[in-house]
């Protein structure tokens, strides 16, 4: 990886980042996918999507016809957000890792959209010295009361602690997780799931003693 290659590759990165920013400022910014209430309905591809993502989407569409991915390219961070049905998550995850080359699970976050819970996986390809040209984020909707989601620990081992954390703070149980236990909250915590929007802190408020002066 000589210096010139790195320089022009870095220059390309700067242009892409600047372009993404400019486009985001121009467009109403923000992927339509996370439309708040409806969610997942955003059909339009948002601002212009680089062709590399288009090829990826076509391949994905061919592989899993029956699935409506509702892809939305988010110019703000360069991620392509796709909705993945809960029951086919494992297949799609294996496909993404092996065939699409997304070998790095960056972040696994839980989101509470009032009417449903959602698990978001941000994926990238870590390749020495190359700019990640494919950034994909899987959004998996999970029912609020029956919160169960297949575990991806054997696909990306980094999901281990992250899934335990989402289980601890959101209450989404991950089937197939080797030892699904509390990780952050104390073992005897009975107060429900803190990160859910309807969480009410039951602990008695300690009133600070302020001497009247």
């Amino acid at each position, binding site marked *: 990886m000589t210096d010139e290659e790195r320089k022009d590759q870095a220059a390309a990165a700067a242009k892409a980042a600047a372009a993404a920013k400019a486009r985001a400022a121009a467009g109403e910014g923000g992927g339509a996918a996370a439309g708040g209430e409806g969610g997942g309905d955003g059909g339009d591809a948002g601002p212009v999507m680089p062709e590399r993502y288009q090829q990826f989407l076509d391949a994905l569409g061919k592989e899993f016809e029956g699935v409506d991915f509702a892809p939305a390219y988010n110019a703000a961070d360069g991620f392509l957000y796709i909705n993945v049905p809960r029951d086919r998550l494992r297949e799609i995850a294996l496909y993404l890792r092996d065939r699409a080359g997304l070998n790095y699970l960056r972040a696994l976050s839980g989101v509470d959209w009032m009417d449903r819970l959602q698990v978001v996986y941000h994926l990238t390809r870590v390749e020495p010295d190359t700019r990640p040209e494919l950034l994909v984020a899987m959004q998996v909707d999970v029912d609020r009361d029956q919160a169960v989601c297949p575990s991806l620990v054997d696909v990306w081992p980094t999901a281990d602690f992250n899934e335990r954390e989402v289980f601890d703070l959101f209450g989404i149980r991950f089937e197939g997780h080797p030892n699904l236990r509390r990780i952050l909250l104390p073992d005897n915590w009975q107060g429900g799931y803190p990160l859910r929007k309807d969480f009410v802190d039951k602990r008695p408020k300690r009133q*600070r*003693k*302020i*001497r009247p*002066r």
Partner: protein
Amino acid sequence: MGVLNDVARAAKSIVKGHMVTLREIFKPPMTIRYPDEKPEQPKGSRGMPVLKVNAETGELNCTACGLCARSCPPGCIEVIEETDANGKRMRRPLAYNLDMGKCMVCNLCIEACPFDALEMAANFEISVYDPENLVFNKDQLATIWKNYDAVRIAGGEKL
């Protein structure tokens, strides 16, 4: 022969390490004797927010608008506005309690104050025996403002 130059390299590395500590012996110490010598603080060093006193009138600049209380993340400022006999607002704080037990000295209250009534003093010695004394009222804040040259830095100005 491998062992020999291993030993030689090991010995050399150990000796060089010792030279570093030997040189260090003759350098002046870095620490100061704190209670006797105070650390020198640059202008604008953030100790605690204090209430500014207007030079001529001797009054507080604060008009009890409560903007600082709303912009404080841990919510450690409590402002009560003074109202005179028939309930007209006097635009002056009856009580201004700043709980230094909760304050994380983030300078947001000073940036939020439209009347230039709050400044950051470099007073970092706020240890008390009883946690209740961590709550400073408006007179204490004014006195601290007097003996520290507090400063207001916000919005990208040059220092």
